[in-house]
């Protein structure tokens, strides 16, 4: 019934050329979307070898200087997607740290992380609370990996993510947390090929800026559900 209704709404919006509204609404209103919280022990990383060079890209840190829009500067990064550049500015203002894979100076994709070392008031990131993640002193939370649509493929997502994990380890962290949506097959694949360990699955229902979470704790051997935790929050994400 719900599937038919969704298909009907999509069809109507497409007919009146408002499919962009549909895609926006689809991200603002959803029911029981499954998020998978994961962790990665950085003592067992997949070697980088020369894979970045072979793909013709470099991994660089995103810094305030590098995203100033002065394309003449040698160290400046070129974001072809202005929204993505604005996100980077916002993240840097929040004290988060980021890495990008670049070809020449053009950003093909970026990923961000934060930790308790970032002297923010409250939680280190809005996501960690509903994900039930508690970052210790030498643990980081990685989030919002994004690849430019025209640059996807050629294993670039793995190279970016794995490269970032190596850099985070160099910065003295022992473990990284994160999450992906279970239906997002590319994200799921990146985390599984990098041997992330699944922590828990959380069902998320969103109505614009209001979120409801159901965290189901299942015994892995028997598959028996032995606890349910409910959460609620109001966040601009």
């Amino acid at each position, binding site marked *: 019934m719900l599937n038919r209704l969704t298909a009907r709404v999509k069809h109507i919006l497409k007919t009146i050329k408002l499919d962009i509204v549909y895609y926006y609404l689809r991200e603002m209103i959803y029911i029981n979307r499954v998020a998978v919280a994961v962790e990665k022990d950085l003592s067992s990383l997949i070697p980088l070898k020369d894979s970045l060079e072979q793909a013709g890209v470099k991994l660089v840190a995103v810094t305030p200087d590098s995203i100033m829009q002065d394309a003449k500067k040698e160290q400046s990064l070129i974001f072809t997607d202005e929204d993505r550049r604005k996100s980077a500015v916002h993240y840097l203002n929040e004290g988060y740290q980021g890495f990008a894979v670049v070809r020449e100076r053009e950003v093909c994709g970026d990923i961000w992380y934060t930790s308790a070392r970032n002297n923010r008031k409250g939680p280190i990131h809005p996501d960690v609370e509903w994900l039930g993640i508690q970052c210790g002193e030498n643990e980081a939370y990685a989030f919002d990996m994004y690849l430019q649509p025209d640059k996807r493929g050629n294993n670039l997502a*793995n190279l970016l993510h794995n490269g970032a994990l190596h850099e985070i380890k160099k910065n003295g962290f022992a473990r990284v947390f994160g999450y992906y949506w279970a239906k997002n097959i590319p994200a799921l694949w990146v985390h599984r090929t990098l041997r992330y360990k699944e922590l828990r699955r959380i069902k998320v229902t969103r109505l614009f800026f209001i979120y409801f979470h159901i965290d189901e704790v299942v015994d892995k051997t028997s598959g028996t559900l032995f606890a349910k935790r409910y959460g609620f929050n109001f966040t601009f994400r």
Partner: protein
Amino acid sequence: MKAMTNEKELIRQFVIEKLARAKKINRINDQDNLIENNIIDSLGIMQLVSYIEATFAVKVKDEDIIPDYFESIDAISSYIENLQQPSSE
């Protein structure tokens, strides 16, 4: 046994034509590692899962999308064969 051989050939054909040829790979053996050889990446797995579901009339659960089941033509073929077994429940 013959059905499994057909399955393998269909998978091989798909992997070569849609995923490997762009990387200038034209031949894949049953045990070749498709992940280490960068043939299946995050976009490739999405295409492969769609293809398997459409061609073999099976449902691939997200819990099953793990490297062990997709690392070679042999592994993919065994996984599909398991999916096609009638459930004992």
